[in-house]
């Protein structure tokens, strides 16, 4: 059934004898006999053309369907199982996730400072494909846009609450969820600790995780000439074996993680947006609204996918960037302006001071916080990393390693600090200053709207909030489909369009099925569980980055 893409040298007049050609200026290609797309299956049934990696595509598609059916059919049996897996992973392997996270951050800083930072992705003469604004908007929209909307108010508030309540002991075990040693009764200290803990989860570490995957992929694709799929990262370790089953399995794992991560988020996002619509317009929530929202998001995503990277996801990311900036500016100006500005530096400082304690993987006294929050987050970011990393890699050609890391690691971290300070700080201040209990008591998905409700023009800002949530989901669904399509096409980015549309529909379909079937919680646990194998992938990525960069020409 395999129809190999034509590459017979005797028939091909383009085949010329050649040494290793320079890509664009100096770079060192890896010499492999593998021809990209050689294992691909090409056909055009019913006039729809296909170009897919037979094994990776078929097995991931079948496994996905099987998993969805199983989760829906045996919901009561499956859900406790996945929850148990998740709890086991985050409690017994928390040290592993936290330690790995630290390694990623240290590697990124090491590379920024080392002479290796001068190496350019795509060869020494490569020109960037996108402007700074377009590039940066896409980095951000793909990386965490939606999370900032959801957790910007709710997470600082949760940590603040827990820290303020102080520690609680039961049989010698801490039962509270406060970070570090808490700050019982001290609102100022609790606010600072809450902000530092939130920034810790949204600052350097997640972006270092993305940066490692993205840099490894970009390096092995643009500088080494290997296909743009996750398996290429393993080339220094496995050599030619990456083109066989070990590579297939790595790629399938990436597809699986991406698909379920996206479907879960699509489901959760729909519940947020629908909660917002209920809050703002009194539109009844519930399954019908959410299914309509998912259908809507998926159709906008389809239009954007068909339009391509430039006219689709880039444009939407830029629009969203402007909207998010306007909302941020609004909160800055209308909220407690001076407090946010001084808070920005204070929070940054508290973050730096608490960073060693927060990122310490061993002998933690705050087990609930470090396992339930930090390890959970790290596993979550890591399970998203194949998708975000690959998308970042694809749009980052032409940047130097240093430029890339500063843009992927430092700039977003500062933006996260500012965002969290503005949104979370305002909410905490509403509580401390005026004793407003609304945000504290609101449900998780309503906390943002409750905070905005205390500021003027609440109808407009809440509406902007909902639009942001929806558009961030469109960009996630869009870039996710691009990534899955590339992986299942054996690293080809020019596979036929219908394949991309297919994956977008599958994502929406899974989200709807699981939302109605009630399997979203199980799925979230599942997505997090894929974080463990991927942590290993990332650690290999660190090794591959160093090895790959050392073999690049410098100067």
């Amino acid at each position: 059934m395999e129809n190999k893409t034509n590459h017979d040298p005797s028939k091909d007049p383009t085949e010329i004898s050649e040494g290793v050609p320079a890509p664009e200026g100096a770079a060192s290609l890896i010499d492999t006999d593998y021809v990209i797309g050689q294992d691909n299956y090409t056909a055009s049934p019913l006039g729809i053309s296909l170009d897919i990696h037979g094994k990776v595509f078929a097995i991931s598609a079948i496994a996905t369907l099987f998993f969805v059916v199983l989760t829906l059919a045996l919901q009561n049996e499956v859900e406790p199982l996945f929850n148990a897996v998740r709890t086991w992973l985050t409690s017994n392997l928390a040290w592993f996730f936290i330690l790995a996270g630290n390694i990623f951050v240290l590697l990124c800083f090491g590379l920024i400072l080392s002479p290796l930072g001068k190496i350019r992705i795509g060869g020494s003469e490569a020109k960037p494909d996108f402007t700074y604004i377009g590039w940066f908007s896409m980095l951000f929209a793909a990386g965490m846009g939606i999370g900032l909307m959801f957790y910007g108010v709710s997470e600082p508030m949760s940590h603040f609450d827990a820290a303020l309540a102080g520690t609680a002991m039961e049989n010698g075990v801490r039962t509270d969820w406060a970070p570090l040693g808490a700050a019982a009764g001290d609102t100022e200290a609790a606010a600072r600790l809450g902000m530092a803990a939130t920034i810790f989860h949204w600052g350097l570490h997640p972006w270092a995780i993305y940066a490692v995957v993205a840099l490894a992929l970009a390096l092995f694709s643009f500088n080494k000439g290997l296909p743009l799929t996750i398996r290429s990262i393993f080339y220094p370790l496995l050599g030619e074996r990456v083109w066989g089953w070990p590579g297939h399995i790595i790629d399938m794992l990436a597809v699986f993680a991406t698909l379920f991560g996206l479907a879960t988020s699509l489901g959760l996002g729909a519940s947020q947006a629908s909660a917002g619509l209920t809050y703002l317009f009194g539109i009844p929530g519930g399954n019908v609204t959410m299914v309509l929202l998912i259908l809507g998001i998926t159709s906008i995503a389809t239009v954007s996918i068909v339009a391509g990277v430039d006219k689709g996801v880039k444009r939407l990311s830029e629009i969203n960037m402007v909207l998010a900036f306007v909302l941020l500016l609004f909160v800055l100006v209308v909220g407690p302006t001076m407090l946010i500005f001084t808070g920005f530096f204070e929070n940054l400082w508290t973050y730096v001071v608490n960073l060693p304690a927060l990122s310490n993987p061993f002998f933690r006294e705050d087990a609930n916080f470090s396992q339930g929050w930090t390890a959970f987050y790290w596993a979550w970011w890591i399970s998203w990393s194949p998708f975000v990393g690959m998308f970042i890699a694809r749009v980052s050609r032409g940047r130097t390693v240093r430029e890339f890391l500063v843009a992927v690691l430092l700039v977003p971290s500062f933006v996260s600090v500012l965002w969290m300070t503005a949104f979370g700080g305002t909410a905490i201040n509403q509580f401390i200053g005026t004793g407003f209990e609304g945000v504290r008591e609101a449900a998780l998905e309503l906390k943002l709207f409750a905070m905005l409700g205390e500021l003027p023009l609440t109808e407009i800002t809440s509406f902007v909030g909902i639009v942001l949530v929806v558009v961030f989901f469109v960009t996630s669904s869009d870039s996710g489909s691009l990534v899955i399509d590339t992986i299942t096409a054996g690293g080809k980015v020019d596979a036929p369009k219908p394949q991309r549309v297919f994956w977008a529909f599958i994502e929406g379909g899974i989200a709807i099925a699981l939302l109605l079937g009630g399997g979203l919680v199980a799925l979230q646990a599942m997505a997090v569980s894929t974080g463990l194998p991927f942590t290993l992938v990332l650690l290999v990525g660190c090794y591959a980055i160093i090895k790959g960069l050392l073999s690049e020409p410098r100067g």
Partner: protein
Amino acid sequence: MYEKIMVPVDLAHIDALEKSLQIAADMARHFKAEVCYVSVTANTPGPVGRTPAEYEKKLTSFAEAQGQRHGQPSGCKLIVSHDPTADLDNLLVKAIEEIGADLVVMGTHLPHKVDAVMPSHGDKLAKHTKASVFLVRP
């Protein structure tokens, strides 16, 4: 009547091009026109080249080989795109203007119902250019 003929080629599917290459060469001989072979490639590694530079090298030697085979002047142009699937049609329309082609010869598939939703590249090209377009059925 025609001075410059543009022939979009995908070096990964060279066997499917044979017919349009022949037609382009015959017309070029008849009109004493120059043929320009145009390719659009992704900036990521692909089946033909691991880098755009490698693709360009192959395209250049392909164009030279075609020119020698048919004994006529030939040129080529490589367009690098980060999303060739989505941008192909627009890039080809732009290429027509840039190289100043007055005739395009390109292969296309048989008409199909799906074309209503997803028109072929030939369909779209003809719609957006002043140059004449010769669609070669397989």
